[in-house]
């Protein structure tokens, strides 16, 4: 990134932490957590420990870092290297990212760039560049309101699984907008905190239905009240519209009998596969299984957008493009050279799409967003 664009990000982040570091709360058992942060153009500084939030906030005000992180794990010695930390426990965390949903809107807003010939276009990344046939192609993903809506639906599915299957009260699950294109679902203390990574992988496999065998659904007749996945598959079959193949009837009871007695195994597998697709949670399994990870802290800025990672008190009403803008009150405007970007709505203002380089005046938070995304820079004459 060029110096002037970087300077703008630095200034914005510093101002945010100067004004709002008081919003950053201390995690429970703060002294047992590992903290980390990275400066702009610098490597991550990990294995830090803080016992009071005031000292930590002061550091953020002084440094204005690009990313601020804290472990969900608790350790005996959080400042030691990983093998010597003495892992104690970790609250469960789930990460759902819009990009993983592969929604059709990606085609409208994602951009690819051929490193070989420099071609840039909207759309999904092709296997090879249509112009030069090169395969060294980068992609830039964007999130739009449709992505956020889709991701929220995944969060609701997850919350239902956690409550009904895992017995975790809804009040223990906090949903945070990640500051980029997804949500982190962080649980308070539960009976699962002492489970190791292998067991956590089983939990994420349960939620994503990885490793499920269709055979389990034809042993005995399904009921929509069945626990767990059986009940979900049953309700999916009940809700299929009349005339849905391979069923001869629209009535659930008869469908359930057909499933056990009449359908061949291919049909059963196909049905279970579609029920699974509709009900499974598209979460990032690695995040849940990894017990040595640090997570962006709530009320800190995401360096990929300049937006705040923020708790969603009312998930369905939370609009990250308004509610997560870090400094919406800032009315300063700046001249920006935008390379390529889809239509963006931020802080109530619409911008773009821009297909080829354009110099334009935008509010500071939008400039930060576009620079952080890698789509814009401060024009040379302003910088000079």
């Amino acid at each position, binding site marked *: 990134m060029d110096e002037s664009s970087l300077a703008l990000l630095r200034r914005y982040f510093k101002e945010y932490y100067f004004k709002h570091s008081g919003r950053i709360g201390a995690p429970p058992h703060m002294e047992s957590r590992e903290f980390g942060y990275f400066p702009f153009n610098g490597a991550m500084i990990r294995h830090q420990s803080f016992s009071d939030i005031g000292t930590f906030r002061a550091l953020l005000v002084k440094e204005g870092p690009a990313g601020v992180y804290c472990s969900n794990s608790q350790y005996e010695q959080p400042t030691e290297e990983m093998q010597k930390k003495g892992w104690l426990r970790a609250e469960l965390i789930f990460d759902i990212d819009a990009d993983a949903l592969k929604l059709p809107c990606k085609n409208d807003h994602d951009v690819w760039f051929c490193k070989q010939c420099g071609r840039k276009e909207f759309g999904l990344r092709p296997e090879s560049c249509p112009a030069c046939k090169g395969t060294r192609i980068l992609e830039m993903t964007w999130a739009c309101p449709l992505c956020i809506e889709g991701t929220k639906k995944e969060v609701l599915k997850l919350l239902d699984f956690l409550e009904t299957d895992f017995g975790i009260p809804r009040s223990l699950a906090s949903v945070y907008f990640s500051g980029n294109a997804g949500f982190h679902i962080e649980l308070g203390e539960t009976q699962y905190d002492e489970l190791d990574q292998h067991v956590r992988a089983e939990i994420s496999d349960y939620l994503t239905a990885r490793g499920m065998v*269709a*055979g389990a659904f034809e042993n*005995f007749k399904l009921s929509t009240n069945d626990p767990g996945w059986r009940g979900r598959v049953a309700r999916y079959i009940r809700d299929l519209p009349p005339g849905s193949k391979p069923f001869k009837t629209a009535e659930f009871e008869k469908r359930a009998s057909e499933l056990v007695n009449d359908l061949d195994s291919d049909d059963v597998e196909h049905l279970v596969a579609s029920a699974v697709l509709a009900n499974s949670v598209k979460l990032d399994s690695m995040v849940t299984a990894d017990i040595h990870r640090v997570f962006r802290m709530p009320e800190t800025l995401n360096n990929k957008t300049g937006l705040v990672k923020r708790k969603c008190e009312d998930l369905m009403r939370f609009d990250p493009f308004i509610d997560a803008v870090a400094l919406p009150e800032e009315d300063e405007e700046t001249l920006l050279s935008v390379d390529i970007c889809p239509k963006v709505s931020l802080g109530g203002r619409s911008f773009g799409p821009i297909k080829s380089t354009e110099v334009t005046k935008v509010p500071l938070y939008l400039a930060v967003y576009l620079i952080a995304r890698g789509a814009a820079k401060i024009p040379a004459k302003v910088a000079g």
Partner: protein
Amino acid sequence: MSPDYKKVIDRAEDRILEAFRSGKVSDKSSENREIEIMSFPVSLMLVKSTKLDHIMERYALAEAIRVEGILKQEKNDHVIEDIFTNFLGIKLERSADPRYPRFKISLQDYVKRAVHFHKPEWKLVNRLVQGGKVFVTQQDLIRLIREEIHEIILLRLGRVNIPKLTANLDEVVKRLVASAPPPPRSAYTIINVRPEDYPPCVRAALDLLEKGQNVPHFGRFLMATYLLAVGKTVDDIMALFPKAPDFKASITKYQVEHIAGIKGGKTRYSVPSCKTLQTNSFCFKDPIKCYEISTPLQYPSRKKPEDEPSKVGRKGGKRSENRSKPKSRESSEERRGWTKAR
């Protein structure tokens, strides 16, 4: 030597030989209860005296299977429940609906144990789960107990002190060592494998590299650990990389050296298990050659799935097609907008 003492030693040796031959110890309590009981600690001492880890492992498992067999004949289901409550400290619940398996066990107690089993029916996702509890049958509980007993016997073996053996016992130990099966392939052993015999997951990573495409982080990790395990050097592995689109020699070298235990935490990383590869969407299972293997190092499978149904997956094996393409973790943690090709 008194005839009774000899009988005890003979039965002790026999228990171990049974473990070698068939992987399970038979129950001869009805023939002579005292000898059956007294021969067990003698077996432990003999097994420990072989100083062969894999023999201890095999023997512990065979004894656990013996107990499993005895429990399976138990008609009174309170016995199993009592073992869980008193022996393992796990309170079971009874399920209210007769259509479902009879018992409920807490999810964490279930998964901690079941995670070690490879058959798909043990995966949490193939279980009835409700309110943090997993439904299990009596047979399931017995299988879970077997695992506990296996662990307990291993622990006991670890604590056995080997006394100075008498000449006749020394003879027995020598005979046992001579007839012991060879150790299984270990997760760390260096073996020479021809590139055409690399497992499909490692080949997938190598193919992507070959085509100049990006290999997800986990694929690179697998490739490095596997190739190191089969005797390749850091430089051999480095030579594979320059076609990667984002290749930075110094970073890659550091990463491979880190995995090899030369740099950083100085821990040599072992090859990830098949289960871990599945969780990370980097399993490209070959239904025959990957049969019942639990790590890529066991590829190709030595067993053939002869009695498997022609369609894998009815009772086990095939996974539902809910896998997304291997995804690089870096993609969502990249610091700038442009991300690498997947």
